[in-house]
């Protein structure tokens, strides 16, 4: 009953619609990140966004979604550049560099957040909500902005679909066609950061990466084609966003991010078991089939042998 009541509120409907678009955009970008083998990069970048959010709040003095998103994007991009720089210029491996940027940036964010919480008193505009996400705190302008950004991301992925495919699977051919790999890489990083920062208010910095990683991995279990993978991943992500938001709205003060992630993980579990391609059940059945096949020729062989002996 309560769920129905919540669903009927017009504000909730907008929030729901926006988290669904967010999930779709994240699912699509997640597929690009998956094939670039950068799933954990999104995790590092979403953590790295925290100091940017707090600093832009400190400079402005109140919570303005647009400015916060710009701050978040700058600090996430700075994190990406640092990871790149450290990996190229020293013997430190990429995963260590990501761990360092993730934890040190997050530490800086918490340091600043503690100062803001102390100085601004009770009226710090719910910055804490950026850690785990709180879709309920979103006002109409936040919702509009998130939908607008999500649509941009979805459009960039769909319009340039062929280009992305070439860029991911045959970069040398893409280069031969005159595509700029550097340009594509920049665009990819830009879209990735955009997706991460727009989801921070609803899902939070800690779990935003899950919304990119889990739907794309789930989609892998159903198809071999990249196009279908992106489409399925978008569907999984969109449903996770919407269902998670509804569930988290059932309790007061329940964070949105973790619920969205749990819904996504449920889709993943279902895909893992029932998936058409490499799913657990299918593999079990295939194994049995193979075992049967392996038995059959030996029986034929045996019967032939018996026939020979009799003959």
């Amino acid at each position, binding site marked *: 009953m309560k769920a129905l009541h919540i669903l009927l509120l017009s504000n909730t409907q907008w929030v729901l619609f926006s988290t669904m678009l967010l999930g779709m955009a994240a699912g699509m970008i997640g597929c690009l990140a*998956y094939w670039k*083998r*950068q*799933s*954990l990069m*999104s*995790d590092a970048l979403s*953590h790295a966004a925290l100091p940017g959010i707090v600093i832009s709040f400190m400079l402005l003095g109140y919570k303005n979604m647009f400015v916060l998103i710009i701050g978040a994007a700058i600090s996430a991009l700075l994190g990406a550049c640092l990871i790149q720089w*450290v990996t190229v*210029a*020293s*013997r*430190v*491996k990429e*995963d*260590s*560099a*990501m*761990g*360092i940027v*993730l*934890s*040190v940036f*997050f*530490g*800086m*964010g*918490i*340091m*600043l957040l*503690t*100062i803001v919480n*102390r100085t601004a008193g009770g009226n710090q505009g719910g910055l*804490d909500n950026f*850690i*785990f996400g709180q879709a309920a705190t979103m006002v109409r302008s936040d919702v509009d902005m998130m939908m607008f950004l999500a649509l941009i991301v979805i459009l960039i992925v769909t319009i340039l679909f062929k280009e992305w495919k070439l860029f991911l699977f045959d970069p040398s051919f893409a280069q031969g066609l005159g595509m700029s790999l550097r340009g594509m890489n920049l665009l990819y990083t830009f879209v990735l950061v955009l997706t991460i920062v727009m989801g921070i208010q609803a899902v939070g910095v*800690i*779990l935003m*990466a*899950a919304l990119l*990683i*889990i739907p*794309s*991995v789930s989609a*892998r279990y159903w198809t071999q084609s990249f196009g279908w993978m992106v489409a399925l991943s978008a569907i999984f992500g969109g449903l996770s966003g919407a269902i998670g938001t509804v569930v988290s709205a059932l*309790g007061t*003060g*329940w*964070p949105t*991010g*973790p*619920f969205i*992630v*749990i819904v996504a*993980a449920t889709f*993943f579990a279902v895909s*893992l078991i029932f998936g058409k391609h*490499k799913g*657990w059940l299918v593999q079990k059945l295939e194994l049995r089939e193979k075992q049967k096949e392996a038995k059959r020729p030996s029986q034929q062989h045996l019967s032939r042998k018996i026939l020979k002996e009799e003959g």
Partner: protein
Amino acid sequence: MSYTAWILLTAVLVGLSCSLIGVFLILRKMAMMADAISHTVLLGIVTAYLITRSLSGVHMLIGAIVAGLLTSILVQWLNNRGVQQDASIGVVFTTLFAIGVVLISTSVGNVHLDVQHALMGEIAFIPWKTINVPILGEIPEATLLLLVVLIIVIVAIIAFYKEWKITSFDPALAASLGIPVAAMHYLFMGLVSVTTVASFDAVGAIMVVAMLITPAASAYLWTDRLLVMLGLSGGFGMVSAGIGYGIAVLLDTSISASMAFATGIIFLLSFLLSPVHGLLGRKLRPPKPIEDAQTAHI
């Protein structure tokens, strides 16, 4: 001992035990695995709390070890089923962490555990929760736990030094020498979980990643020898704990976050200034002519 001294001692113990374990994490290229375990330990602690309804050290340790091993087993299993390594890490830890957070915020939250605590630690409250130990007298429970874990870590490193050295640098050789590589791996993962949970109370889930990875990565830029790297990493860990505490007092902010920030400063200095593998070192020593000759031959 005074309040400040206990906090400093706890911070230094966190720095030392994490940074020693971190050396092997870096060498085995498992930095992100540490990130994953530090998150999932939360679920272990919450589950242990839900079962026993107490936050005693032993229950938390067991919960954490189970959660840590579960993480590494699940990641391995998914990886064997054709999911890329980093994607499987991402799926496993975010899911388990989300379950932990949901459990805290819906059922346990009000009493002892809260999300804030789990993320940032409560090092400032540690000196007040003391227990009586026969010889040492009244000491904070978390500090005692860290001391025990540090001893376990040091004993394990001494006992398995050779094994871990070989498995870290050349797993194939280790296997051919008859070293049980898989057992060593899970033993190591168990140790990572124990260290994480002991530090958890003090610095929280995410800052522990900074203490695990950053000092060791900094030390990696200064030396090529494992023993020296262990020493340097331990030193960096302790120094960052001290500097972090200083910054926190100066700016009146979170101690654990400042410690994470301090590890970052040390890393940045090492990255820029180390004469061995830092940027300065590369500037001072232009590429060796021998290498040029080799590439010319090829």
